């Protein structure tokens, strides 16, 4: 059984902040929801409550950056770019302030529905000059996200998981370095965030079906290591598939497509994610299945690439699910 880690961000942020006096903790009325309530209680002198006013928080953080501080802004990812987009660009991104945007509940990992689901955040952030984008896919990456983000000479947006999170990796995030999780030769699978866990679930079944998978986990979306990706694409024979917790437009699938087009790579590409649609509220497993972001969707996409059925059944994939653990801790609650 995969180890489940409860609230890894809380202790990781506290340790990082205490070791870095210029780190400040900012919150916009989602303090316990972003697992910084303990920090607020123990270190009130390092915590700024800025209320339900994200536009001010964003420009205020720009001012703190101008004063040499490195503010960590905590909110749901969606509230860090949709409402305060102008402030994000003018007060933070343009002047390259060292503002760390900790965006919780990325994509459909929230039951909050359209208003709460950051499904186009990568597309938005990718198109902002000077912005760096990181994404966490397991407990170890959440534990290392603060140090990784704080190493960036400029603003950074992070998709942060919360609650009970599986530990998939044993090494911290290295900014700019993708993880090579499998080195097969038929299909290149590219995942990030929660979709990596889905791909891992399908791994054994795919191996049993005779499909050789090369699997990359992406934690640094911008800047992106094009050469490494191209090398991996060159090592597979049947095509590339991207599974992401985001719209297929402007996200990692688009990123991969751009790189392939820029370099004249004539291989097939399947992009899985939200297909030009908003999502609605529901549990994470339900939403991942409903919108085709789960292991079964990945298998179906791979079947399109190889041109025949693998014979893998939903029951086979369900056998490696971790739902019982998730639901016990209610990781997806608001």
């Amino acid at each position, binding site marked *: 059984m995969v180890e489940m880690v409860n609230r890894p961000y809380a202790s990781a942020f506290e340790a990082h902040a205490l070791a870095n006096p210029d780190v400040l903790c900012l919150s916009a009325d989602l303090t316990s929801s972003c697992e910084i309530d303990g920090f607020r209680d123990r270190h009130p002198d390092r915590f700024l409550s800025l209320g339900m006013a994200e536009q001010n928080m964003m420009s205020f953080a*720009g001012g703190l950056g101008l004063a040499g501080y490195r503010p960590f802004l905590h909110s749901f990812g969606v509230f860090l770019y949709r409402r305060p987009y*102008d402030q994000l660009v003018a007060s933070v991104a343009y002047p390259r302030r060292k503002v760390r945007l900790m965006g919780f509940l990325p994509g459909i990992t929230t039951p909050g529905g359209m208003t709460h689901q950051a499904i186009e955040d990568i597309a938005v952030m990718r198109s902002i000059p000077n912005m760096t984008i990181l994404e966490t896919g397991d407990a170890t990456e959440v534990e290392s996200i603060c140090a990784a983000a704080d190493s960036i000479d400029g603003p950074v947006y992070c998709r942060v998981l919360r609650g009970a999170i599986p530990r998939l990796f044993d090494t911290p995030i290295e900014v700019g370095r993708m993880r090579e999780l499998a080195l097969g030769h038929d299909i290149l699978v590219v995942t990030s965030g929660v979709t990596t866990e889905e791909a891992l679930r399908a791994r054994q079944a795919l191996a049993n079906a005779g499909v050789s998978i090369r699997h990359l986990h992406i934690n640094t979306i911008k800047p992106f290591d094009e050469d490494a990706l191209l090398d991996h694409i060159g090592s597979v024979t049947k095509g590339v598939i991207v599974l992401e917790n985001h719209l297929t437009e402007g996200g990692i699938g688009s990123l991969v497509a751009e790189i392939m087009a820029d370099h004249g790579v004539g291989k097939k590409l399947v992009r899985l994610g939200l297909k030009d649609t908003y999502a609605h509220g529901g549990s994470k497993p339900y939403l991942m299945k409903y919108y085709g972001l789960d292991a079964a969707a990945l298998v179906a996409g791979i079947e399109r690439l190889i041109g025949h059925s693998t014979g893998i059944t939903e029951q086979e994939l369900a056998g490696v699910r971790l739902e019982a653990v998730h639901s016990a801790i209610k990781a997806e609650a608001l």
Partner: protein
Amino acid sequence: MQNDKTTEEIALGIRRRVFVHSMRNNGGYLSQACSAAEQLAFLYNEALNLGDPTLPAVPKPFAGVPSAENPDYHTGAGYNGPVTPHHDRLFIAPAHYALVAYATLIEVGRMDPEGLEMFNKDGSSVEMIGAEHSPGMEVHNGTLGIGLSTGAGLAYGRKRRGDTGQVCVFMSDGEVQEGQTWEAVQAAAHHGIDNLWALMDVNDQQCDGAMDTVMQVRDITAKFRNFGAVCVEVDAHDLGALRQAKALPHEGQPLIILARSSPTQGMEFLRRRFPRLHYVRFKGEDERAEMNAAIAAELGIAPVDLSQGSH
């Protein structure tokens, strides 16, 4: 750094420079010079503790935007002096007041008059809407309403570091229509940010015309007080009143001075254009000549020689 001239002389000089520039360039932000000349003269000549400029008197051309590949990038803040713990900082929140701000820099000896000749020229850093890299600017404020929040964040950070210098935000009253302005005041009050003060040019004008016709903002003095600021309203053209207002104690709260101004002060001929004063363009050569003669007389200078063509 204090100038040899009186603040009154500087205010008159600002109006004259903006007038001459606008005449030569067939239009400009004339009304902002009328309303804000005393305020900007007061800030630079009296109210702010600013060091000597650190950037050349003749502005350098545009040298690129901030990026990892542009390590030599710097803002235009050096015209306001060095960044030190004890010096004040100034943001010009309404970036379209740039022409007036540049004229002020010249009048107080921080920029060469040649700098104004670069105004709005391609490749120049002396941009029409003040950018971060424009003389006297430190942050982008072209999207109105973000300046006070940034000032509050900087002030909080400076207070935390023990800096004695204050943060001043020069604002325009149109910005009170933006919700962010109120978010900024409530945050500054909530966190006791009292090394922050704002001087707001209340000229009742905005791009579409008189503010009351565009969107009524009602009693902004009461609103600022209710949001937690110490707020006082004064005559923008009365330097004594500005001095008194600046001296108001505001421990634990930001200070906001509402400087009620006339958008035609010193150039009453512009009344003919009321209420469309945001950017004054001449309707033809006749009007340009008539305005040239009339306003030059009001400002006590000879009419601008228009035969030189536009600069």
